[in-house]
């Protein structure tokens, strides 16, 4: 034990002296590993954030939600203001619940000139919005940004109305892409006669047939209506799930590619330097071996040195990226909620931690030539 401490302390002194005399040797290793780890971190975190943003969209939309949008123009026979259009999805009532609203072609503006989309609801959908209504006004302004429960003036064409602000939740979440004004059907008949998008939000019962089958059934129903000019748009979570799967596939490909590049680069750079330094240090190594110092001990010295530098560089690169996270990924266009660490720290994810594994594998591979070099007999080195 004592001899191990003495040898380790001597080797540490020797390493430190070498670093001090040839700073290019540790610095080049730190730089190369740091740079590669930085690039790998950016790519892996970007994938992580992309995945998170798809998951968030998916969560917002709902796995069991299907949204059907059907354009009703001013000359359509389905254009009615005070009565509901025929319910083409009535046959699917046993499989889930529906909410029907109309998105008008006209848009509104708040008193701060922010644009809002305008929707109307009929009597059949009234009970879905009772909890959001305010005694002051029938208008509801769903907004993620505006403070809730405030009264806001909204202008729609030449009309103005007061609306109470509410946070979007439940049924309406799949529709919210921007602030949304909801008023009872018939509030502005002239604007409604210009046309609208008949929007049906269908929530599948958990025990109903799969979403893919429901989507197929809906498409079939609409296809049977020969008077239609254009098919409705049926939107479900399926494309998002496919997108997520594709992203994960690409993520795995990139992870493997990065692992290969990082591991190979580290092993080649570190290996070349380790061989040069081993040669420079051949005399001391052989002298220690001549006293009977274990060969493994001398191998560990190179392995630890390489692993120390590789880990230091990789951890520094990840820490640097974490510090610049919002600035870098904000510039790359990621939304604020996705950038937030509250949904999980991407720098502590398995993908980013795998960078440490790759550099350590590289460090281990780079030390193999040393293992071979240590097989040279002491007598071939020392005279």
């Amino acid at each position, binding site marked *: 034990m004592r001899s191990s401490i003495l040898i380790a302390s001597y080797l540490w002194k020797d390493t430190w002296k070498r670093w001090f005399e040839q700073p290019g040797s540790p610095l080049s290793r730190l730089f190369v590993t740091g740079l590669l780890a930085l690039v790998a971190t950016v790519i892996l975190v970007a994938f992580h954030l992309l995945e998170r943003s798809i998951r968030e969209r998916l969560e917002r939309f709902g796995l069991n939600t299907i949204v059907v949008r059907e354009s009703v123009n001013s000359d359509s026979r389905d254009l009615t203001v005070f009565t509901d259009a025929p319910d083409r999805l009535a046959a699917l009532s046993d499989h889930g619940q529906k909410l029907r609203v109309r998105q008008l072609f006209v848009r509104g503006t708040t008193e701060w000139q922010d644009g809002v989309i305008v929707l109307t609801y009929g009597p059949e959908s009234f009970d879905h919005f009772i909890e959001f209504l305010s005694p002051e006004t029938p208008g509801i302004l769903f907004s993620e940004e505006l403070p809730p429960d405030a009264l806001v003036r909204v202008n729609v064409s030449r009309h103005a109305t007061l609306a109470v602000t509410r946070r979007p939740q439940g049924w309406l979440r799949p529709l919210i892409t921007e602030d949304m004004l909801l008023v009872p059907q018939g509030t502005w008949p002239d604007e409604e006669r210009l046309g609208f998008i008949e929007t049906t939000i269908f929530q599948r019962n958990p025990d109903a047939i799969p979403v893919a089958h429901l989507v197929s059934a809906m498409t079939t129903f609409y296809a049977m209506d020969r008077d239609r000019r254009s098919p409705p748009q049926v939107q479900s979570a399926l494309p998002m799930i496919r997108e997520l799967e594709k992203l994960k596939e690409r993520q795995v490909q990139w992870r493997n590619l990065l692992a290969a590049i990082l591991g190979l680069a580290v092993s080649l750079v570190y290996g070349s330097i380790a061989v040069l330094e081993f040669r420079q240090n051949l005399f001391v190594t052989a*002298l220690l071996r001549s006293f009977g110092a274990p060969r493994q001990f001398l191998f560990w010295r190179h392995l630890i040195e390489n692993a120390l530098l590789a880990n230091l560089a990789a951890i520094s690169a990840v820490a640097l990226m974490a510090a610049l996270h919002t600035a870098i990924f904000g510039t790359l266009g990621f939304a604020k909620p996705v950038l937030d660490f509250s949904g999980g720290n991407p720098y502590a994810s398995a993908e980013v931690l795998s960078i440490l594994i790759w550099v350590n594998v590289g460090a281990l591979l780079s030390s193999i030539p040393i293992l071979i070099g240590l097989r040279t007999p002491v007598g071939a080195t020392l005279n």
Partner: protein
Amino acid sequence: MSVPLPIRPSPTVVNGGQGTMTCHEVSFRYFRQQPWVIERFSYSFAPGITLIKGASGCGKSTLLRLMAGYLVPAMGAIVTPSGRQPADPEFQRRDLGYVFQQLNLLPLASVTRNLTLAASLAGLPPETTAMRSAKWLRLLGIEEFASRLPQSLSGGQQQRAAISRALVKEPQVLLLDEPTSGLDDLNTRVIIRALQEYVNGARICVISSHDARLESLANEILDFNRFLPVERHLEALV
């Protein structure tokens, strides 16, 4: 290009007795295509001081390195007094002291630390190490340089420090490769005195040297030139 001269079989009888270090039919060459440097060499090194003398390149140093386990013979066997293989690290740690011709000391360790490191590998307790270090450093006249780094010592001082490092273990087998080459008479006398003190008839000490000043010290002299017809040819040339 000089070709190493081969050592032919020794006429000495191999007794392989206890406490001896025996080479039995040992052959060695550095590369396959080259001739043998040592060929079927047999000899039994008894306790005491054996001086191997001979011309440069005759294989003296190679033989010492084979005996120390630093090279492995292509054929034959070397039996150490403890029965361990020469290449066994335990033999090198505990039973062997070796002094190289040059570059003997760890450059970043003081003389004391050089001694302590070798002693700790041999498994000596710190008190024994301290006691023996003081003894051998005093006997070799480098006590006052104990805390200095090798680079601040003269060649003679470095060589004496290297010998004290080999002696601090008080090993069964001490092998010295040209320990006095390039040293003045005073340094040589100090080394001779220390070696006499160490061997004391009970341990094996093999010195490879062509320094005639060491001949008086040897209990036995092994002249490698006897096996080298080429050397006789060189003598004739002179």
